[in-house]
């Protein structure tokens, strides 16, 4: 490696702050005066503000993206707003600015977030039009956009973490949008708590990395490296330091608890990503998150927030490529999740739950992509998934709205004629997610599968990961076809009245058409060379991942990689053919089985009651968590409460009693000795007074006698003294 890769050129861009600022302003307006506006001017004013700010943000983002794209070399647009965090410790000083950076990876995310976000905002104006707290919905949606943009544009771990927590908060707020219903409020809480578990790992990884960059632990004490630079959490700086061979060797040799620090922190970061991106074992919150309004599911729980974990792993590519273990963990967890969640999608009866498990499964794919080192493929799938999954969710939203908020498949069927726009776009997204050749999902998914098969650095052989992925692809095709069949085909199961009144609003169909169209053709940017394309998407992201790509090749050669080594286009085409064949088989099977409506009872009979029961109940994972984690935890809190009540309070009360006793003794001393002295003095005075009192007879003559005697004595005294 002869240093062919230089750090990207930094270009200051003073307008970057506007991108997150607009939605923040929208949030501030709707949060403060939204309720009044809605009452006085109607809902139009509320969504006017929300849409204007989101579209303004989209416009500025477009300018930033254009600037990134128009430079031939890899540039990073940067803007430093103000010095943010600074502290000193043992001669090390950390200073972090509040800064934004937009490189090519961020540009992709910016496009996904602002573009899909804007479309979903438009859709929401239709879907949410009957909701009373309309302003609250849009305020939180705008706040979410702000947090998500900070997440993707943040220049450092901490900036990213601010956005990371911000989107978590908005997710919670929007899942619990219908907070009057206890189960929906509980779903929000569940999402929040599960995410906190992941976030803890994120913080731990961040702290570990921060210190490992500048020092080591010896005997439990931190020792700064000789001549170390200032600690940093800025992504580009960390990467630039790793480019230095001497620094990198020293850094990679560091261990904590016997594990290489890079592995430990990468695994911790990935655990954080598991929380946010709903991977095993923390995926359980996402299906429950469907309690929120459907546009929220589309924006947060399909297109943007849940992909933050994938984005983070891709962003940290320069770290991950140095830890085979961490990469393997990412790829394996992704593959397992992809397959596991796909099977749960089989028998769900709630249209949104099917899509939720589908999202979990597709996120697994993305993690497979970034886990096997195909970072751009993972991000490509992230983008295409944002198109087709947002389209599917909005389509389901359109159905749910038309059916008066009924979302069970038993009430659907035959909606093809009633909701034609929804039908066609839903179908487009379905073929895209199933991976029918030519659609966006086909290109991104097969890119991942091919790279997984071909990779030489995961500890688990690439073929196994590929097998998981390709089986999951078949399952995906199956359950998505089942979903489409049960929704749009067959005889309508909704009542006449509902069907008669069902209609599609333009505000809802336009986003559907745009997203459906992109789901079909959005893959053209990433047509692989094996199919005569040039994979422009990968080339676009190359500057971001080039260095780690080289490191990866070098590491896998050094480690005697066991990749299939099918570095040929023919091999890729064969794998594609297999994947497509399986997907088509899945579709055909589903079409055969679901030609007519199958209730859960029918399905149980069809597939075997035991299997159906286990899958229908999602492998009893929630129940397992409840019994294995939540209940023991609650028991622990109760025990802690009891401990508090009896032991802590006991000690406190004991202290109180001891004080009381001391005070009593003290009081006794006071009473006996101090008061005694005072009283004795007083008594003596009284006694003396009583005695002297006898002199006062009240008899006039006694007094006169006294006077006479006194005067006489005085006279004698004067006479005697005069004589002397």
């Amino acid at each position, binding site marked *: 490696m002869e240093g062919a890769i230089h750090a990207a050129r930094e270009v200051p861009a003073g307008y970057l702050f506007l991108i997150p600022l607009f939605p923040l302003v929208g949030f501030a307006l709707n949060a403060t005066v939204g309720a009044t506006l809605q009452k006085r001017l109607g809902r139009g004013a509320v969504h006017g503000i929300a849409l204007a700010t989101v579209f303004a943000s989209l416009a500025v983002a477009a300018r930033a993206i254009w600037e990134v794209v128009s430079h031939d070399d890899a540039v990073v647009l940067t803007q430093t707003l103000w010095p943010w965090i600074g502290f000193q410790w043992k001669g090390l000083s950390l200073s972090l600015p509040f800064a934004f950076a937009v490189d090519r990876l961020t540009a992709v995310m910016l496009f996904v977030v602002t573009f899909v976000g804007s479309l979903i905002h438009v859709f929401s104006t239709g879907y949410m039009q009957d909701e009373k707290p309309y302003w609250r919905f849009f305020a939180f949606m705008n706040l979410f956009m702000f947090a998500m943009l900070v997440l993707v544009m943040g220049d450092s771990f901490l900036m990213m973490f601010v956005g990371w927590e911000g989107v978590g908060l908005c997710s919670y707020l929007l899942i619990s949008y219908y907070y009057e219903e206890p189960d929906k409020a509980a779903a929000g809480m569940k999402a929040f708590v599960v995410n906190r578990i992941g976030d803890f790992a994120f913080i731990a990884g961040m702290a570990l990395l921060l210190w490992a960059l500048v020092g080591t632990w010896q005997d439990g004490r931190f020792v700064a490296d000789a001549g170390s630079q200032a600690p940093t959490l800025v992504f580009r700086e960390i990467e630039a330091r790793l480019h230095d061979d001497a620094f990198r060797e020293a850094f990679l040799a560091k261990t904590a608890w016997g594990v290489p620090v890079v592995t430990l922190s990468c695994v911790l970061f990935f655990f954080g990503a598991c929380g946010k991106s709903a991977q095993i074992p923390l995926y359980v919150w996402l299906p429950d998150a469907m309690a929120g309004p459907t546009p929220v599911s589309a924006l947060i729980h399909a297109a943007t927030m849940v992909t933050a974990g994938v984005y983070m792993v891709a962003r940290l590519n320069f770290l991950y490529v140095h830890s085979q273990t961490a990469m393997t963990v990412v790829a394996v967890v992704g593959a397992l999740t992809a397959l596991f969640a796909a099977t749960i999608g089989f028998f769900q009866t709630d249209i949104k739950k099917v899509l939720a498990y589908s999202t979990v499964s597709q996120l697994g794919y993305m993690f497979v992509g970034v886990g096997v080192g195909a970072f751009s493929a993972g991000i490509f799938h992230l983008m295409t998934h944002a198109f087709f999954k947002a389209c599917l969710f909005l389509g389901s939203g359109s159905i749910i709205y038309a059916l008066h908020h009924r979302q069970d498949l038993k009430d659907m069927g035959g909606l093809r004629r009633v909701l034609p726009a929804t039908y066609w776009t839903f179908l487009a997204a379905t073929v895209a997610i199933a991976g029918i050749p030519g659609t966006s999902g086909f290109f991104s998914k097969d890119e991942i599968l091919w790279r997984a098969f071909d990779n030489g650095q995961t500890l688990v052989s690439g073929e196994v990961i590929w097998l998981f992925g390709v089986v999951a692809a078949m399952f995906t095709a199956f359950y998505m076809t089942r979903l489409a069949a049960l929704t749009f085909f067959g005889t309508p199961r909704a009542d006449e009245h509902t069907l008669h009144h069902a209609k599609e609003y333009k505000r809802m169909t336009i986003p559907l058409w745009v997203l459906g169209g992109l789901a079909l053709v959005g893959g053209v940017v990433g047509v692989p060379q094996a199919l005569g394309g040039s994979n422009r998407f990968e080339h676009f992201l190359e500057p971001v991942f080039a260095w780690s790509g080289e490191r990866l090749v070098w590491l896998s050669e050094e480690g005697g990689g066991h990749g299939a080594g099918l570095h040929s286009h023919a091999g890729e085409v064969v794998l594609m053919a297999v994947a497509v064949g399986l997907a088509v088989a899945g579709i055909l099977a589903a079409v055969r089985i679901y030609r007519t409506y199958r209730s859960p009872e029918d399905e149980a009979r069809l597939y075997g009651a035991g299997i159906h029961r286990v899958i229908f109940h999602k492998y009893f994972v929630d129940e397992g968590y409840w019994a294995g984690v939540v209940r023991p935890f609650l028991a622990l809190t109760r025990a802690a409460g009891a401990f508090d009540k009896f032991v802590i309070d006991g000690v406190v009360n004991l202290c109180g009693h001891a004080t009381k006793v001391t005070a009593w003794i003290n009081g006794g001393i006071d009473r006996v000795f101090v008061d005694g002295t005072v009283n004795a003095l007083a008594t003596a005075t009284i006694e003396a007074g009583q005695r002297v009192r006898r002199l*006062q*007879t*009240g008899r*006039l*003559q006694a007094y006169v*006698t006294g006077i006479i005697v006194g005067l006489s004595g005085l006279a004698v005294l004067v006479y005697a003294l005069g004589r002397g």
Partner: protein
Amino acid sequence: MHVTLTHFLVLAAALFVLGLINLATRRNAIGVLLGVELILNAANINLVAFSRYGIGGIEGHAFAVMVIALAAAETVVALAIVLAIFHHYRTVDVDEVSRMKE
């Protein structure tokens, strides 16, 4: 016999002592007042005697007249008190009236 200052002084002293004894021994409040009058008049005799035989002039006589006036005023007040005591206690025995000790 030539009457000298000494005779007057002895008379006045005798009168003073009698008044004093009267004051200290009589139970009757009126009697006590009489004792007071005797003492005052003993003083008057001295004043006049010293004026006549001593320094001359009328200062002594003037003082004596003052004392007589004072005695009259005092007696008025004292008799009023005695009357009030009689009204209250139905007696003028000063030994009975001993509430001054409180």
